[in-house]
């Protein structure tokens, strides 16, 4: 009812005016009829009626909702005040837009990646179960599971509804017709995997139990992207055959579009057992699978896990001389998916949070400055009867307006920023789930509100303090009343600078780690080296001789290409990842006591030219030769770390390593020791053993390494043509220079380091602007004082020092606070740092220097201006 009145009050007022007019006219007529002169008739009518304006006002008030009316008036007033200071408004709105936009973007990503439940059925009950080695050095905490362990767990425990397993795989996908061959990342999953996850297929079906056996008919499932990309989204692909590693696989199903587990690279799924042999599946020490388990309702994870633990301990005791873990460990599936990005994301979120805080403080600071300029206005309003709450409300409306405008622009910015972030961040899990939705909008609206409160409340409260009215009392000498305000500004500024320092130091540490990572010495050359990967299928290259023949022909051709300095062939090059490890024994040494940890090393393959191509130094013995091939190849080259860890000073040459390959144990004679290499930049080095590539059958995945005279990427196309000429159906993948390989492992670090650095730089800029503003304000406040000082004989440089000191004091306090806070905060960054300590003195020093420089720069102009004041004018000013 009253709402209607409120909005119709214009109409109601118009009606009233007409009524009044009529009333007065009638009255005048009556008066005239009584014989009054027209003048008198008019006068008497008005006398009797009273003030028409008051009647209108009465009605207007009667029709008004006071709160809304006041708010509207405040809004209008605030908008006008802001429009009168466009410079201030623009700066404040842009600051808030940047800060709110960045915060919204990061929140969007964090919510989608870390907070949203996985898109599976009842995802809270899904956990990953890993083997857990006690006593081993770090790296075996969450160890991949052996197939036989998984089968035992599934058969003998009851706490989980079901357990499923999968492992990474890779196929050469060749077309039936003209399509180019390509390497596709694949995964092999047990038949029940998709029911454990609760995934329904849009097309076809999942694997049946019968298909998940060695030697069963070959079937495959396509992911949505491969289905669209290679098969044009044609549903008739179900039942058709595709060629994987030259074998025909029948497509039985297509996974839904949103399905991106374990990552978006996986294109094809095949049954778990189909990529194995019965012997491999019976192994308890062949760690390559990931186990997902679905907890039974009303069963605790502890309870369910304890059954698995019991079985694993039993297995461990049964295979004491094999690397079978004695324990298991689990973590929720979602933690498993996001483990690599959780810390970086939280760090980034905190960084934008800090930036938002700085932005708010900055706007608060600007508002305090404006509050000082409007002191008289506020005082007059107060004197005319505005209550304190009214005054505060009026100023708050300004900050709400600034923040809302900033928030609106920020929201648009964040849409673009989120898209850019998701595109630029390689390997961000669950990137497909990221989009702005209602929840994000709600949160950003809340953020706007909080920001407005943060930025507006303090200035508003301070500028409406009782002392503010003092300006009216002693005419214009107002320096006294604003003393507390100056203190407030300094405090705000000190906090702003402290937060900036924390951000800068975090950014500095991350950036230093990133630089360290980029320039890591892998133990091999990274300059002008091109690598590429290929895998020879078991079907086409069924005999070791064929594999060796292909490799040798290829290497020969490459060696003779122009621009190539050296060529080598290996399995996994330094920096390209863990690759795989194997346990071994040294027959010359006394046998291990039961329970003692087995020697364990990365296993690699190398041809005679591999080490010289990568410039890995030979420390003793010899490299492989072309003669170490096929059945005359029981030789091994070890890394220095292996020598140091397991030979303890004795000469390893001539000793043997006993390796129990898939139940075909062999002894290998140590013929050489080479320098250590890192398997991944940023990870600790690990002992490695190299077996001759020319042995043939060990593995079928190879990496060619070419050291060239100039830019190696120029060679990538000719080399691929050379390979295509040898085998047109053989796809080549991962054509990368060594520098790119290192870059890949530094990807997340580089990304977060760059972003945090950007945020820190912005914050520094904001802090500088704040510093500049505060000092300008102080100078303006003290103009008269400076004039007096100068009139009394103060030198210009003395005045400058005085003002500089005034400005630098809050900077110094902020710096000290910031350094102290950083000492605590940076510890949280530890897991993201590489080769850099959380208290790295160089970073702390650099940040201190930069901050002091920027602070001095920001203070210089106002201080210089103060020193240039003309004392006569300064004194006359007030």
């Amino acid at each position: 009812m009253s709402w209607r009145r409120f909005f119709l009050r214009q109409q109601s007022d118009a009606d009233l005016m007409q009524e009044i007019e009529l009333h007065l006219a009638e009255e005048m007529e009556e008066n005239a009829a009584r014989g009054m002169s027209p003048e008198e008739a008019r006068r008497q009518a008005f006398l009797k009626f009273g003030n028409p304006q008051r009647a209108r006002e009465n009605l207007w008030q009667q029709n008004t909702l006071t709160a809304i009316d006041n708010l509207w008036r405040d809004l209008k007033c605030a908008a006008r005040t802001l429009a009168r200071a466009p410079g201030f408004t623009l700066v404040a709105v842009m600051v808030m837009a940047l800060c709110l936009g960045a915060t919204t973007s990061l929140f969007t990503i964090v919510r989608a990646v870390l907070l949203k439940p996985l898109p599976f059925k009842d995802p809270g009950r899904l956990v990953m179960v890993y083997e857990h080695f006690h006593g081993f050095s770090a790296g075996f905490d969450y160890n991949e599971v052996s197939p036989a362990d998984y089968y035992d767990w599934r058969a003998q425990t009851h706490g989980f509804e079901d357990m499923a397993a999968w492992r990474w795989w890779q196929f050469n996908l060749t077309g039936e017709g003209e399509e180019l061959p390509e390497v596709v990342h694949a995964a092999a999953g047990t038949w029940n995997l998709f029911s454990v996850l609760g995934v329904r297929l849009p097309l076809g079906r999942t694997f049946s139990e019968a298909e998940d056996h060695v030697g069963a008919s070959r079937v495959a499932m396509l992911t949505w992207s491969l289905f669209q990309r290679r098969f044009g989204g044609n549903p008739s692909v179900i039942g058709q055959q595709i060629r994987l590693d030259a074998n025909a696989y029948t497509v039985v199903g297509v996974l839904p579009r949103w399905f991106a587990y374990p990552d978006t690279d996986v294109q094809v799924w095949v049954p778990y057992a189909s990529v194995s042999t019965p012997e491999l599946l019976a192994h308890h020490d062949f760690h390559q699978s990931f186990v997902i388990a679905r907890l039974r309702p009303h069963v605790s994870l502890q309870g369910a896990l304890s059954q698995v633990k019991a079985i694993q301990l039993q297995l461990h005791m049964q295979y004491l001389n094999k690397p079978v873990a004695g324990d298991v460990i689990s973590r929720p599936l979602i933690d498993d998916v996001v483990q690599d990005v959780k810390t970086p994301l939280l760090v980034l979120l905190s960084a934008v949070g800090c930036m938002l805080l700085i932005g708010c403080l900055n706007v608060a600071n600007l508002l305090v400055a404006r509050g000082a300029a409007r002191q008289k206005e506020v005082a007059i309003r107060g004197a005319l009867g505005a209550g304190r709450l009214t005054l505060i409300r009026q100023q708050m409306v300004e900050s709400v307006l600034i923040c809302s405008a900033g928030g609106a622009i920020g929201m648009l910015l964040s849409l673009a920023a989120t898209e850019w972030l998701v595109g630029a961040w390689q390997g961000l899990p669950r990137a497909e789930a990221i989009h702005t939705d209602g929840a994000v909008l709600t949160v950003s609206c809340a953020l706007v509100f909080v920001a407005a409160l943060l930025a507006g409340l303090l200035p508003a409260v301070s500028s409406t303090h009782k002392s503010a009215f003092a300006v009216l009392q002693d005419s214009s000498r107002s320096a006294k009343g604003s003393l507390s305000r100056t203190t407030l500004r300094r405090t705000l500024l000190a906090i702003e600078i402290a937060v900036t320092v924390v951000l800068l130091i975090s950014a500095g540490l991350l950036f230093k780690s990133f630089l360290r990572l980029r320039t890591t010495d892998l133990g091999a050359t990274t300059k002008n080296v091109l690598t590429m990967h290929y895998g020879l299928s078991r079907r086409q290259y069924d005999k070791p001789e064929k594999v060796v023949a292909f490799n040798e022909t290829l290497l020969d051709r490459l060696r003779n290409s122009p621009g190539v300095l050296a060529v080598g062939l290996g399995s996994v090059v330094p920096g390209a990842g863990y690759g795989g490890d194997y346990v071994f024994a040294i027959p010359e040494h006394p046998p291990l006591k039961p329970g003692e940890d087995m020697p364990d090393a990365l296993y690699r393959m190398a041809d005679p030219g591999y080490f010289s191509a990568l410039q890995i130094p030979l420390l003793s013995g010899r490299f492989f030769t072309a003669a170490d091939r096929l059945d005359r190849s029981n030789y091994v080259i070890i890394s220095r770390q292996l020598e140091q860890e397991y030979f303890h000073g004795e000469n390893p040459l001539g000793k043997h390593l006993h390796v129990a390959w898939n139940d075909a144990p062999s002894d290998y004679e140590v013929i050489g020791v080479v320098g250590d290499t890192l398997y991944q930049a940023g990870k600790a080095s690990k002992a490695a053993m190299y077996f001759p590539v020319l042995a043939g059958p060990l593995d079928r995945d190879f990496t060619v390494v070419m050291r060239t005279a100039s830019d190696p990427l120029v060679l990538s196309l000719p080399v691929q043509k050379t390979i295509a000429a040898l085998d047109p159906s053989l796809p080549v993948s991962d054509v990368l220079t060594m520098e790119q390989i290192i870059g890949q492992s530094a990807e997340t670090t580089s990304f977060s380091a760059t972003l945090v650095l950007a945020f820190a730089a912005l914050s520094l800029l904001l802090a500088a602007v704040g510093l500049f503003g505060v000092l300008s304000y102080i100078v303006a406040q003290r103009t008269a004082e400076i004039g007096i000082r100068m009139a009394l004989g103060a030198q210009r440089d003395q005045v400058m020092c005085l003002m500089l000191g005034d400005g630098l004091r809050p900077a110094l306090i902020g710096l000290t606070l910031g350094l102290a806070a950083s000492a605590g905060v940076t510890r949280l960054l530890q897991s993201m740092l590489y080769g850099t300590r959380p208290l790295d003195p160089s970073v702390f020093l650099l940040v201190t220097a930069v901050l002091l420089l920027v602070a001095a720069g920001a203070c210089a102009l106002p201080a210089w201006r103060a020193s240039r004041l003309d004392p006569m004018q300064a004194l006359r000013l007030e």
Partner: protein
Amino acid sequence: MAKKNQASAEMLKGTLDMMILRTLLTGDAHGHTIAKVIERTSEDVLEVEQGSLYPALHRLEDRGWVSSYWGASENNRKARFYRLTATGRKQLTLQVSRWRQMAQAIALVMGDKAWVEGGDE
């Protein structure tokens, strides 16, 4: 003048609505007529502050006790006429009885028995 006005305004407070409704009982009227009727029937004792009449009329309309329409005045001017609604009629009865009770009670307190008996016919 000012003093008199104030006194009458005070007295009218709360009773203006009732009197307006009572006036409209005899037929639709516009603001000027209403003011005139009240003044005349009170034998010029009650002088409506004419300015406050209109907000009161709008308030009554808002409550749904009167309704309004535009018509022509006796002198053929465009005027807004007010009409008593059914709710208004009920309200009037209610207010009048309450007023009577009040007046009687005050008279009792003042010891003016004769007036009470006289007025209660």
